[in-house]
């Protein structure tokens, strides 16, 4: 028996009450595309599953005061079909489109992808580069905001405890003249874990041909998705040029320390991959449009 009870709740309040009642023996389930397998393989154990995936108050994608807000039970298919995201936040639309297969995307949710905390989860890599935050409800009635940079503790381990907490919303700010892109390498285009995922978000100053802001998230090169701080600093240090992108990619190469992996290749190969894909993804990102106040189109270096 993988679990004893399966409860589909009608309200958020009901979900939190059940978690409180069972004191650690119940946990939330969203799409379950990862969790069902983990329970079957006894990697996780639980008595009661509380299904929150159909709650309409957790399913939305909206823009408010320069921020994008996403309900945690929004499915990958819904994200991948969002004109708002394709227009303004390409990296997240691309990430959602890369998850599993259509069958998995129709069921799996962005909230589930985050709480499950796999080291290279597609939407997580994008959301780290977007400097996103999550809103979490605690079962004592309190609420807290956690930035993505503090959310992940290790492989499969996030700060959110699904036996007592509910991830409600993901939000991030749109940047002026935002450029973004996801670089993804996998053995095939569907149903394959990424060998490398790179999420890049830039804010450009076209007048001066420089970047206002640069964020690069790479995974898996460590137990949790990693921001490439040195590479980001390099990108801000001078005017945009091909040499600048090459130096930043070199800085990402220096910072990456992936282990030898039967699935993903050896350390030397994976480091080189970080360099090449950082460069390529920077180029692709610069050629996109997005964010707020972007009228003049792409820039080239």
């Amino acid at each position, binding site marked *: *028996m*993988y*679990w*004893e*009870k*399966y409860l*589909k709740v009608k309200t958020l309040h009901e979900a939190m009450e059940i978690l409180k009642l069972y004191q650690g023996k119940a946990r939330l*389930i969203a799409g*379950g*595309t990862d969790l*069902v*397998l983990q329970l079957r393989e006894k990697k996780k154990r639980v008595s009661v*599953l509380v*299904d929150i*995936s159909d709650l309409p108050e957790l399913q939305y994608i909206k823009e408010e005061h320069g921020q994008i807000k996403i309900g945690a039970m929004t499915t990958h*298919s819904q994200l991948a079909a969002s004109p708002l995201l394709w227009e303004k936040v390409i990296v997240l639309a691309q990430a959602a489109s890369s998850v*599993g*297969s*259509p*069958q*998995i995307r*129709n*069921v799996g949710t962005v909230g589930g992808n985050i709480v499950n905390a796999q080291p290279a989860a597609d939407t997580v890599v994008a959301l780290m580069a977007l400097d996103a935050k999550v809103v979490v409800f605690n079962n004592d009635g309190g609420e807290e905001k956690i930035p993505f940079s503090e959310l992940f503790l290790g492989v499969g381990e996030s700060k959110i405890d699904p036996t007592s907490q509910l991830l409600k919303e993901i939000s991030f700010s749109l940047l002026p003249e935002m450029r973004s892109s996801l670089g993804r390498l996998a053995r095939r*285009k*569907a*149903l394959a874990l990424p060998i490398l995922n790179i999420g890049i978000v830039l804010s450009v100053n076209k007048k001066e041909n420089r970047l206002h802001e640069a964020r690069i998230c790479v995974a898996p090169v460590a137990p949790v998705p990693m921001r490439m701080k040195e590479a980001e600093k390099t990108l801000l240090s001078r005017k945009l040029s091909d040499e600048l992108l090459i130096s930043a990619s070199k800085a990402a190469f220096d910072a990456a320390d992936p282990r030898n992996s039967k699935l993903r290749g050896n350390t030397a190969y994976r480091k080189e991959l970080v360099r090449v894909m950082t460069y390529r993804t920077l180029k692709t990102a610069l050629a996109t449009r997005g964010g707020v106040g972007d009228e003049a189109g792409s820039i080239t270096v």
Partner: protein
Amino acid sequence: MKLEVLQFELNARKVSVRVKPDATLLDVLREDLDLTGAKRGCGEGECGACTVLIDGMPVDSCIYPALKAAGKNIETIEGLGTEDNLHPVQKAFLDEGAVQCGFCTPGMILTTTALLAKNQSPSEEEVKVALSGNLCRCTGYTKIINAVKVAARNINKL
């Protein structure tokens, strides 16, 4: 073990069935309702042989908790056509020889039906993306993709 009552709509009929709380939708369809069209391939949501439509969307039923389906609308291959009156997608798969061993076929056909309900004339790339969660080990996909195009043409002629 305490059984739970699961109610949903299955192939346009209201169904009520007593299920184990940790059963998957595929278990219930195959074991309790004798609908063996959906196949257990990998059992891990990788191959798509167990695909059914839930509220019109393809879903891997082998990793879908049965009780999650409460109140939803489920379609299986059994609900699509009859031997005397095939659904246009079934007919196209037969006409184009897009079937070899047949194990992946129910999933392929249901995924195609969902695609064509959304997009009446998909490009080859759109067909490939739509079918990317359905694996076939025999045909090499050429005939399957062709059958989807033929089905689209035939449906548009109706």
